[in-house]
């Protein structure tokens, strides 16, 4: 320990923005192809990469399915990231959103006979609304109440459905319409994911995003400005829950089934792990985290619940030793160069 300290003594790491980063920050970015490429290429890489994936996995139907699952988890994860790092609410029960979306979509589809293109958007909005309503009592409060209550709902939801034997009980709701073909399924999800991702990134930089961050950092100041905190928290929860419900509705239609297992723990823990691994507060990070973690999850499927323990350990390792996450790390390397200076 002391050896390590001695080694670090007398010097520190200095970070400087790369020239191209400084130039492309301003309006001059549009004056040169190089600067424009610097700005656009990371975003383009993500967009084109995601859009090309269904075609790339054409010979592997199993992994095409995994791609859909990745998108669903990503939707959930960017919702978690938004809620945790822009509104300041830690939601430990992502499974609630998935379950709400899946069950509502299944009910709309089987009971009311709505077609799939109506049931998914409706389930998105209604699921978001339902989850917001359920979580409303803890929104006017500070502290850990939101985390605790959001943890309880998915754990209890399955047992309540089982105990009351509603919505098909333990068998779940079967006989939903599927997507017309596997490409429709994947492109609906991928395009929805990209729209939500870039939409949220824009939203957090608008005025309303400023209020959200104010609610997180100093709620008294927000209140003193005459803004109702509970309304904004509810709006934040609604956005995150809608993203999750969209994923849940798609999940129900992919498997043509909605059941208690859609309240499973995986839906709560993977988005959190993906956010921490990918980098909290970046919104893109969670997607990258999902691209890494969900395939690992599929490879570990034979080991049953061990995979949840594996994520929990990955999560813990990252939170303690590399809490900035991959995306923040990558962005720093991309935008800055660093070197040691003597002091």
């Amino acid at each position, binding site marked *: 320990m002391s050896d390590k300290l001695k080694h670090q003594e007398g010097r520190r790491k200095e970070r400087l923005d790369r020239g191209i980063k400084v130039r492309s920050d301003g309006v001059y970015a549009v004056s040169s192809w190089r600067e424009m490429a610097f700005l656009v290429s990371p975003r383009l890489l993500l967009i084109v990469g995601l859009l090309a994936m269904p075609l790339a996995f054409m010979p592997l139907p199993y992994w095409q399915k995994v791609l859909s699952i990745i998108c669903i988890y990503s939707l959930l994860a960017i919702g978690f990231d938004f809620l*945790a*790092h822009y509104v300041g609410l*830690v939601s*430990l029960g992502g499974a609630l959103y998935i379950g709400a979306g899946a069950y509502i979509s299944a009910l709309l589809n089987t009971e009311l006979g709505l077609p799939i293109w109506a049931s998914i958007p409706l389930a998105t909005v209604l699921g978001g609304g339902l989850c917001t309503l359920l979580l409303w*009592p*803890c929104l*006017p*409060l*500070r*502290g*850990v*109440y939101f*985390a*605790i*209550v959001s*943890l*309880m*709902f998915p*754990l*209890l939801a399955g*047992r*309540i459905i089982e*105990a*009351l034997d509603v919505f098909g009980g333990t068998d779940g709701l079967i006989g939903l319409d599927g997507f017309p073909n596997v490409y429709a399924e994947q492109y609906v999800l991928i395009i929805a994911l990209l729209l939500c991702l870039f939409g949220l990134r824009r939203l957090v930089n608008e005025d309303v995003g400023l209020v959200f961050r104010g609610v997180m950092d100093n*709620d*008294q100041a927000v*209140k003193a400005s005459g803004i109702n*905190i509970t309304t904004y928290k509810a709006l934040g929860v609604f956005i995150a829950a809608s993203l999750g419900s969209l994923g849940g509705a798609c999940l129900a239609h992919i498997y043509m089934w909605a059941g208690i297992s859609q309240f499973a*723990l995986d839906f709560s*823990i993977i988005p*959190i*792990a993906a956010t*921490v691994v990918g980098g*909290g507060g970046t919104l893109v990070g969670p997607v990258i985290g999902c691209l890494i973690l969900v395939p690992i999850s599929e490879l570990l499927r034979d*080991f*049953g*619940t*061990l995979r*949840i*323990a594996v*994520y*929990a*350990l990955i*999560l*813990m390792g990252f*939170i*303690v030793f590399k*809490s900035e996450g991959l995306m923040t790390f990558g962005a720093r390397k991309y935008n800055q160069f660093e070197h040691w200076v003597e002091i």
Partner: protein
Amino acid sequence: MEIIIYGVINSVTLALMALGFTLVYGVSRLPNFAHGAFYVLAGYICWMLLNRLGLPYFLAGLIGLAVVGGVGAAMYHFILERIRGMAISEIIASYAIGLAILEGLRWGGLKGGTFILQPFVEGSVDILGVSVDYQRILVVVLGAALVGLLWLFVNQTKLGLALKGMAQDERAAMTLGIDSDKMAVVAMALGSVFAGVAALILLPMGSIVVEAGYHVLIMAVAVCIVGGLGSWTGAVLAAFVIGFAQILTVAYIGAHWQVVVALVAIIITLILRPSGIFGKQKELEERV
């Protein structure tokens, strides 16, 4: 009569589950989401020592408690201490540790049925016309003893008073020379041991299953919110409120609805009196 007796038993059960959680939260403001995992872990270790190594019951229980206390202290010292004060990270990390323990145990073959601790004492007795087995009476006696011991410890010993000081005002406690990190480790170890004690007393009434971990966590959380987070007297009182509410629900509405009681209790508390029955001093702090 049946309702009163089983209500008391159920309430003491809940109080036992919640004590460790509320102790940790009260001292270090950390919601220990690994609480349920410690409960199951203690039962599992005890069972393993009992059945695989053939140790006597008392020794097995004692080792189980020591291990769980050690795990709790280590978890705090090596992981949570590094991220102290970062609320999001604290919550996620303790949740992750709990999940890792529980799901790791499930993978390790912990399933219902085979893992059963024998009751300490067999048989039952009639109290005012209601048949109650000895184990349940033991739960009440030990539960009351434990609450009493905790009270004595907190109010009469130097360590206990230090913990109380931390709970009331951490900064003031630090100016008086109380090492807050060390106290938080002590609190976490104690809280884990309490979870273990609850496990050893309660588990002989059923088998050791992973789901018990989640159940205990939910009940502990419900009791703590209703009683006021971090308030020890509030937790005991709230255990009685929820315990009797559950028994009354089972008796008059139906056993199915028992799982809903805790949730409804939390929601009502959060709407009407968010700081809980005994959470007066934090009222302004938590309500925005």
